[in-house]
């Protein structure tokens, strides 16, 4: 199995370009991770200013996506990468798409956090948000970690966590429905929380995609839709 490495190209500039998009991707991953954490905190702590910050900073994530995308296109045009280099560049273009979508979902969560902070009510549903939030934040962190080390085993392990996230999402839905039936006054609030857990579930899917891409880049095996 060929090892992943960006070194030893005859054109050392090419090494640097690949290393550069890797670094940029890690930075983007870090930023998205932070956005996600802040958005969850904003919901749980009813912190609307934190939520506003998440909303404002989503633009930075978008800019990062555009920059990395451009760098990838340049590499393809200039270097015609092959084999592991090609898989890596293609993976990056897909990974930044997933990261950007996670950024979107974090912004949506932040939007709901603002609305929730203006609503009175009990803290019902926060337990579910915290639980799911922890799970998907963990998945995202592990996925980025696996990417940094091109660690297929870690990626596979993280990928499998998505099934649990889906189950937790379903049980969170049931809980929320129960709250709504118990007290119709909570419906408006519960629906906002429902959107939040929905976003968290989507983020789990995107983290899973990232893991699949890590497997592809290292092993050359496409494990999507299996």
């Amino acid at each position, binding site marked *: 199995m*060929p*090892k992943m*490495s960006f*070194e*030893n*190209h*005859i*054109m050392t500039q*090419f090494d640097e370009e690949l290393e550069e998009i890797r670094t940029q991707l890690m930075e983007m991953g870090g930023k998205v991770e932070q956005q996600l954490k802040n958005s969850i905190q904003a919901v749980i702590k009813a912190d609307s200013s934190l939520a506003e910050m998440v909303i404002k900073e989503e633009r930075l994530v978008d800019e990062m996506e555009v920059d990395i995308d451009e760098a990838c296109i340049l590499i393809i045009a200039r*270097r*015609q*990468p*092959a*084999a*592991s*280099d*090609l*898989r890596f560049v293609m993976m990056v273009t897909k990974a930044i798409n997933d990261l950007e979508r996670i950024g979107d979902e974090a912004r949506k969560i932040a939007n709901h956090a603002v609305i929730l902070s203006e609503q009175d009510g009990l803290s019902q549903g926060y337990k579910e948000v915290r639980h799911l939030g922890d799970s998907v934040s963990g998945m995202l962190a592990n996925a980025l970690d696996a990417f940094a080390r091109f660690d297929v085993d870690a990626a596979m392990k993280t990928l499998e966590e998505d099934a649990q996230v889906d189950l937790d999402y379903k049980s969170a839905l049931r809980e929320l429905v129960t709250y709504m039936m118990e007290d119709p006054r909570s419906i408006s609030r519960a629906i906002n929380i429902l959107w939040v857990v929905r976003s968290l579930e989507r983020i789990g899917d995107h983290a899973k995609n990232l893991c699949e891409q890590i497997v592809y880049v290292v092993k*050359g095996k496409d494990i999507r839709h299996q």
Partner: protein
Amino acid sequence: MKEAKVAAKTAKDPKSTSRQDLEVDKAQATVGNRFCENPKMSMRDVNVFYGEKQAIQDVSVDIAKNEVIAMIGPSGCGKSTFLRSLNRMNDTVDGCRVEGEVLLDGDNIYQQNLDVVELRARVGMVFQKPNPFPKSIFENIAYGPKIHGLADSRVDLDEIVENSLKKAGLWEEVKERLHQPGTGLSGGQQQRLCIARAIAVSPEVILMDEPCSALDPIATARIEELIEELSQNFTIAIVTHSMQQAARVSHRTAYFHLGKLIEVNPTERVFTMPENQLTEAYITGRFG
């Protein structure tokens, strides 16, 4: 001894893991899909020597009918030598010795009292530099069919010339000046003229030794398109330094390294997920 040389060459950077991996794989036999059912040509344990020096080591591979197989590898890896052994072009090189079997439709082309001229009509060759005869365009094409007795009449010959030029995609450009010298054509046209000349004797296999390396991108694209069309009727083995070209035109790609056949696999596999570390290093531009 060769291994030791590679080790010395590749161990320059002690930090690098990938180069050390290259040495481990050196002892490895050919990986991938070497053989096929109903091969047009079959090579078995082919060794080629130039005097004492061994240029090709134990190469066994099949070429399927109507297949385009690309041979790639760093300079001096033996890919051209191997290609030339497929129609005994090496016979003309002093001190060159070929061992093993090269079968064309099951018959060994190195058997004694085989007519080499006839062999080369069946297995034609196109070279790196276009080398038209210093004669008219018409004569360039007509020469082969004439000496092989393929044309009974002038009309036959005209037809062969026209068809060959059409197949080589050159007819429209030269039909008005068939009796002008072939050397007056542009480089790309000359190369297509040479391909037309190879086709004119109705070969079964066409060997191409870097057919585009002296051509500009447009002429190269024309030849590449031609290769695709020719593969409908002919079996083609092409040696190329351009990996993108191998990726574009071939069905299978064979990677040679220091006289050994390292990997043969479907082209799409070789350029996305090569099986061998050496192939990977070469096609990603890590040495060559």
